[in-house]
């Protein structure tokens, strides 16, 4: 039997399914082991090998790598094309996408409870997300803070950095462009509504219409906790709200919930 070329699998590599891999998952019969099937399921074109390894805790890393090598050689998976976070040319020049009637209608039912929660707690989170990256503790979570008040922006950066995040701050259009273009793609955007040369809700809509940025969680930072503004954010696809001026406790709770991070009970800090 001829020796096969070894496939080098690195921690930061990202793989996606081939047509054969997709058919394998859809098919009734399979020649693959349950462990390999689980790897196929997790090979989504987004998760790195490190993230997959962290997520599949039942198997040691060596076994995960060996299985991925077999799946690659067998033609079930391939190297995923890298999404280009730099491709946001014309982000601000493009027209603001219109909200659909369906999105507005869906958000209406949630806006009242969202506003009430904001009034009571200072934060409101719509969706608790948990991705493979959260489980790969070795990877730093990056947050873009869009805030034009320089002291508040610095406060957020210092606080998030203390909590172990990689925080980038942006206060206007050009800084937002620079922050979004900087690799890696952010895991979260904290988005102020009233900016000197842009509207936070418009930015949200543009992000949700963008092929790369659409899946990035967004928490709106807003002093306007009215039903109208909550409705606008929910319909536009915001994952949460924090009312300004905010308490650190509200910030932590909203960020941890949206990112699926547990909090250290009683400590006021995030458990990483």
């Amino acid at each position: 039997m001829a020796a096969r070329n070894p496939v080098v699998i690195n921690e930061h590599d990202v793989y996606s399914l081939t047509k054969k891999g997709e058919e394998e998952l859809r098919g009734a019969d399979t020649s693959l082991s349950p462990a390999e099937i689980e790897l196929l399921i997790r090979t989504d074109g987004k998760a790195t090998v490190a993230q997959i390894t962290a997520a599949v805790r039942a198997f040691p890393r060596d076994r995960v790598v060996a299985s991925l090598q077999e799946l690659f050689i067998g033609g079930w998976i391939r190297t995923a094309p890298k999404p280009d976070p730099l491709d946001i040319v014309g982000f601000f020049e493009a027209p603001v996408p219109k909200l659909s009637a369906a999105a507005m209608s869906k958000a209406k039912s949630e806006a009242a409870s969202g506003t009430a929660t904001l009034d009571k707690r200072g934060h409101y989170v719509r969706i608790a997300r948990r991705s493979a990256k959260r489980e790969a503790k070795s990877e730093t979570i990056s947050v873009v803070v869009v805030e034009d008040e320089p002291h508040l922006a610095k406060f957020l950066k210092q606080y998030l950095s203390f909590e172990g995040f990689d925080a980038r701050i942006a206060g206007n259009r050009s800084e937002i462009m620079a922050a979004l273009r900087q690799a890696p793609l952010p895991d979260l955007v904290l988005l102020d509504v009233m900016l000197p040369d842009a509207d936070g809700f418009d930015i949200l809509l543009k992000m949700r219409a963008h092929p790369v940025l659409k899946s990035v969680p967004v928490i709106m930072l807003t002093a306007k906790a009215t039903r109208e503004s909550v409705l606008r954010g929910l319909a536009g696809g915001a994952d949460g709200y924090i009312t300004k001026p905010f308490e650190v406790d509200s910030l932590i709770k909203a960020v941890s919930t949206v990112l699926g991070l547990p909090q250290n009970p009683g400590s006021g800090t995030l458990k990483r």
Partner: protein
Amino acid sequence: MTAEAFKRQLEALSADYRRDLPKKLALIESLWLELAHGAAQPSRITDLLRELHSISGSAKTLGVAGVSEAAATAESFLEPFSKRGKLPNAAQQAEFVRLLDALKRAGS
């Protein structure tokens, strides 16, 4: 960074914010005087509103709660005029000046 060092960093930031506050309040007063004396277009109420909004949304987080509240009150008062692009009438202007005075007192 230790928790103690981090706390000192935040305290330094708060102190810096307090030092800058008089300049921000002076800018607000100057914008208002320009508007009230007809030296600026009524549309510049938006600029004034933005400055008030910025303070109301940040001061409490940075340790000056009373300033946030006073700025928020002034902002709420002014917002309907900003939407209409019209200046308040004389009585309303007097009320706004009172709110600005309260803001200055909170920031001093």
